[in-house]
């Protein structure tokens, strides 16, 4: 089946998300759609999937135009989609999620769950996906959840499969497995559209690469001849520095010491399991790991948002295990949270109010009862200038800013004061390249002034580039303490997946 998008234009209030986009996909081909966050990749695919209606343009299947008014139409036409945020009901089983919408039924519309199990098992075996139909989604690792998504698509007999940022949540090993799955799909005569912002993967897997910038296709390149920096320049529109520029570090005294920390959650699951490590002044310690291996809980415990079940946390030799978030804050701990929408910002408050969100109670802004808003405004204005936050005014709601600028608000608020320890979780998730460069440089600058820095990121490239020391977390334990300069990404990936590289086993 040949798929063609012709002159697709999709507008949202104030922005043109897709501007006259033309693309074609042939059977047995992997087309890679690459572009920055916000370039319009996901919008384009949602148009293809019948979730958005484009203002202009046509979709053609084997040369004849089709109109999709809902995902149901797209599915019926043989288009399947694996979304970036998995479309899985967390409390359902694998089988329930897979058959949702195409349920096998018995008498009186009763659900034939045995049949559903069988269907899952059949597809899972055929493509070697190894799924348990009765497992509950929320208890599965992300990599497995993705395979459930793939089974969903295959069960509906999709001829074209769209993967939206599929590797963002996978370990390097899982990524390799994922590429194997893609190859089986191609071998089975299906077409694959692969959306990503990672250059290496695009070059690795694609037959053709289309580069999207600000809603427009700015060019197609051949992965056999193109280079990373060439594509990056097309994506961003200017030359980009792909490596983090930093001086060798000069570690000082121990600032953070974590001793034998364990965390059990409300349901009795052990999320952090006897973890011990230190972070010194003037060094960046990175924690790598696949999402859901206890990093979130560890950061929560270090910042006082969660009680640890046992163990000790010390800052400059002082016990802060049971200190409140505010006490930690006043002792010089900064926290850039992993989810800026959920934790880092209050979308309904103004940019200025968000810039003092963790400091409003300081003497500078409040006498304990009354706020000094003019003072807060002055500080906000200067931070907006210093950190280059693009906002029409300090008084508009923070939710109206772009992701990169929202993140800059948080970074500005957290780093603009004397610090001992800076903890940043996923500091550049969903942020444009310009902001990534800026945030990275800010973090390195903080290190160079003698602050201890702890970076938690699931982006292996990022955490390897920034860190002076690299820890790997797997199932709540720290399984490796590495020198990022002397370790390959592949080896780190093996630790992230719970195994050990051959070199380490021998040593």
């Amino acid at each position: 089946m040949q798929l063609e998008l012709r002159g697709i234009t999709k507008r949202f209030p104030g922005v043109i998300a897709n501007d006259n986009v033309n693309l074609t996909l042939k059977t047995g081909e992997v087309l890679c759609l690459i572009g920055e966050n916000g370039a319009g990749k996901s919008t384009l695919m949602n148009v293809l999937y019948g979730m958005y209606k484009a203002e202009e343009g046509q979709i053609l299947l084997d040369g004849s135009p089709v109109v999709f008014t809902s995902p149901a139409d797209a599915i019926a036409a043989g288009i399947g989609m694996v979304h970036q945020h998995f479309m899985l009901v967390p409390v359902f089983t694998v089988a329930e999620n897979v058959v949702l919408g195409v349920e096998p039924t018995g008498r009186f519309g009763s659900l034939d769950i045995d049949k559903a199990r069988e269907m899952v098992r059949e597809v899972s075996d055929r493509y070697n996906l190894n799924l348990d139909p009765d497992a509950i989604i929320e208890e599965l690792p992300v990599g497995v959840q993705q395979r459930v998504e793939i089974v969903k698509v295959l069960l509906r007999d999709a001829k074209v499969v769209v993967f939206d940022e599929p590797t963002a949540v996978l370990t390097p090993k899982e990524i390799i497995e994922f590429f194997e799955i893609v190859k089986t799909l191609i071998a089975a005569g299906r077409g694959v559209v692969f959306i990503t912002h990672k250059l290496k993967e695009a070059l690795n897997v694609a037959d053709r690469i289309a580069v999207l910038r600000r809603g427009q296709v700015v060019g197609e390149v051949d992965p056999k001849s193109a280079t990373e920096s060439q594509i990056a320049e097309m994506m961003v529109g200017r030359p980009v520095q792909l490596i983090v520029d930093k001086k060798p570090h000069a570690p000082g005294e121990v600032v953070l010491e974590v001793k034998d920390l364990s965390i059990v959650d409300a349901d009795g699951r052990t999320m952090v399991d006897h973890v011990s490590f230190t972070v010194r002044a003037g060094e960046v310690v990175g924690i790598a790991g696949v999402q859901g291996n206890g990093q979130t809980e560890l950061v929560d415990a270090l910042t006082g948002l969660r009680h640890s079940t046992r163990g000790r946390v010390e800052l400059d030799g002082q016990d802060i295990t049971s200190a409140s978030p505010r006490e930690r804050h006043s002792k010089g701990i900064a926290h850039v949270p992993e989810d800026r929408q959920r934790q880092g910002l209050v979308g309904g408050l103004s940019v200025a109010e968000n810039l003092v969100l963790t400091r409003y109670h300081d003497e500078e802004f409040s006498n304990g009862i009354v706020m000094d808003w003019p003072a807060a405004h002055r500080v906000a204005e200067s931070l907006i200038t210093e950190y280059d936050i693009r906002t029409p005014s300090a008084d508009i709601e923070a939710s109206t800013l772009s992701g990169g600028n929202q993140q800059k608000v948080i970074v500005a608020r957290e780093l603009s004061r004397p610090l001992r320890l800076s903890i940043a979780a996923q500091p550049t998730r969903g942020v444009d390249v310009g902001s990534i460069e800026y945030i990275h440089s800010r973090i390195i600058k903080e290190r160079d002034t003698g602050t201890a820095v702890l970076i938690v990121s699931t982006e292996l490239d990022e955490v390897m580039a920034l860190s002076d020391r690299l820890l790997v977390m797997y199932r709540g334990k720290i399984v490796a303490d590495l020198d990022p300069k002397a370790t390959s990404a592949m080896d780190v990936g093996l630790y992230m997946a719970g195994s050990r590289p051959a070199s380490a086993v021998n040593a």
Partner: protein
Amino acid sequence: MKIVASLRKIAERIARTSSFRITLLAVLSAMVVGAFIIILSDIDKLQNGDIIGAIRTVGSAYWALVVGSFGSLRAISATINSATPLILCGLSVAVAFKAGLFNIGATGQMLAGGMAALWVGFAMDGPGYVQVPLAVLAGALGGAAYGAIPGILKARTGAHEVITTIMLNNMAGFMVLWLLKTNLYQRADRTDPISKLVTAPGHLPRLFGFLDNRPDLIAHAGFVVAILAVIVYWWFLNRSTTGFEFRAFGMNADAAQYAGMHTKRLTVMAMMFAGAFAGLAGSAEVLGTYGYASQNFAGNIGFDAIAIALLGRSSPVGTLFAALLFGALQAGGRQMQANTDVPIDLIVVLRALIVMFIAAPLLIKAIWRVKVAPSSTGQTFRGWGS
């Protein structure tokens, strides 16, 4: 001259804002639907084919509504009197909304506050400048204490305040009934549940007391308390440190916790503030309007307050005007019931319709074919989990 010019500017700005237009059109739409209800329920006239007569009833009913709420000093006084507890209870619901909590318990808190104020009201005998503030304060404290219960339960155990406040409302009703039969509260010569009378100096002074021979002007100083409460609420939200914490917590509880706010303490405080406002409403009713308490002195005010807070979007000025509108409907409704055969219950329908229309600007837009800015009332409900 300058004042006049600036006043005109303000008036123009209000007239131009779409929320004002929506409110106006919503009231109008509600009146139209109300008119249909009046006509269609006039079955005797309709059976006799007297459609003109049925329509005429609508005219006289709505005329009475206007006259009874704003047509005379007496009407304005009645409007003020009805609006007083509505403003205070509206603030009670509003302050909880601001902190992300849904206070259905204004009724119970009003009863608790009213009973506390009442005790000071009849146990003391002047001087008024001591007794009245003391009684009002007792009302606020009583309400705050009762409001603290769901707050503490939510903070400590996560019990949802929608459930706990409903339960506490029912319990407060029986508690009042019991208290009104004890020697402490029951009037000496009575066997039914009715309280002792507030002593003369303990009454909230009448607003129009300076006019001679007008005992019909029933508005009392509780209105002043309510206006002060609106000002305090405005100041608290916009100027105070805790008010900032309330707003941040209400919009994003996770971020508030991340920012080091004591969210459990905020939960308890928000419910205590809510209770205090409702308690003030209770004391205004007991010390100003009735001078004693009967079993059901809170009436439906606690529920009306939810509509008021929703209508006023929990803002200080919005809540004030919403309560005045509801108060005017209440006062006018009494006149309407007296002048025509249209029962006062119509105003409950009108209130419901106004809330519905205001909440759905898209519907207003569709009906009246006007341009309104897309505005949302926001989401008041944050899910059953906590």
